[in-house]
């Protein structure tokens, strides 16, 4: 692997140092300065000397490395070893920061591309007494009725009074105590009246005058009527 000599390839001296350590398959904490100093210096010599602030950081590190290398070769004193260890520790921390930052960035960018999923439930056919099921039953009854009436289609100008209809349906139910929804709607003469009858059933349901049992039958609410 060749070093890319363009400026900006490395963010700072530790970046280059880390690159060389990895290239030589060293652990940052086991840094052996003598093995990488030459390459480091070679890089700094070929660097663009445009940004003084950045290049001075590299030059300072290069001179530190050269000094430690020469002392290591001549006389590896306790002091020099400690200086190498200090740089190793800093390099290790730098590598930790760099890798963790990369991880944070990668996870963030990946997760930005993921959308959460949420799925609606389907209703069970066996559901009893709950309102949607009641609603479904009414819908089905009305649908049956409509289909029935499709065949004998006629138009009427008659008006159906809602209040009259309520009284009519009420008395029907009081008389029989229990009726199939389609039978109630079946008392209507045309579609328009069927709608009014349907809404009447809704209204009586709302008033708790009646309830719907599991057989799609309208049952008078005995509690309500004493």
């Amino acid at each position, binding site marked *: 692997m060749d070093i890319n000599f363009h400026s900006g390839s490395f963010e700072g001296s530790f970046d280059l140092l880390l690159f060389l350590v990895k290239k030589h398959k060293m652990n940052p904490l086991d840094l052996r300065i003598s093995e990488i100093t030459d390459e480091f210096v070679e890089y700094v010599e070929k660097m663009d000397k445009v940004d003084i602030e950045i290049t001075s950081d590299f030059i300072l590190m290069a001179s530190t490395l050269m000094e430690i290398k020469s002392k290591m070769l001549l006389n590896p004193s306790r002091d020099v070893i400690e200086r190498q260890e200090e740089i190793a520790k800093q390099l290790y921390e730098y590598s930790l920061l760099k890798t963790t930052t990369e991880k944070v960035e990668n996870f963030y960018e990946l997760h930005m591309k993921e*959308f959460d*999923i949420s*799925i*609606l*439930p*389907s*209703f*069970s*056919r066996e*559901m009893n007494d*709950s*309102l*949607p099921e*009641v*609603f*479904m039953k*009414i*819908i089905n009854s*009305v*649908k049956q009725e*409509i289909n029935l009436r499709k065949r004998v289609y006629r138009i009427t100008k008659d*008006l*159906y*009074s*809602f*209040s*009259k209809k*309520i009284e009519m349906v009420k008395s029907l139910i009081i008389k029989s105590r229990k009726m199939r929804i389609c039978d109630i709607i079946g008392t209507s003469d045309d*579609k*328009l009246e*069927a*709608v*009014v009858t*349907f*809404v009447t059933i*809704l*209204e009586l*349901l*709302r*008033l708790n005058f009646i309830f719907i049992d599991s057989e799609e039958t309208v049952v008078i609410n005995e509690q309500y009527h004493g």
Partner: protein
Amino acid sequence: MNNIMAEVEALIMSGHGLTIQDIMKLSERNRNEILETVDRIQEEYSHVNHGVELKNIAGKYSFFTKSEYFDLVSKIRKKSVSEITNSQMQVLAIVAYNQPLTLKDIEKFRGSVCANQIKELISMGLMKRKRDKTKKGNPYIYVTTENFLKALGISDLSDLKEEFVENTKISEDVWNSVPPES
């Protein structure tokens, strides 16, 4: 190279009801490819190891949890349709069968105020408010949403709805005969 099954699955799972045309356009695939893929996905999810299934409701494809897991799933769904109150259900029924309706129409029909019920139904995504561009002043009108159909799991309400809306417009006189207070 993307996998067509995965593509269609990702689209349907993240969309809220897509037609075959929608999926064709989005994935830039032809009709046969999409139809075949939808079939394959439907078949796969029909397996007992899956708790969700791909359904076609009113021409739109969506995933739903299977009905046998309704009881289980409804434990986590706080605001599910099963928790709609009686009065909300009534408003919903009135709107479903007579839409579009103005607030005044709904209240006249019901015989009592229902602004609160409407607000909650809208927040649950079962109803929505639009402007009636055909009337002067563009008044607000209320209609049920696709979610409403989805929530009830019915695919064929549209036929019924047309019957009512087109053929049985309730005359003003009938409206007026609704008792103001029940």
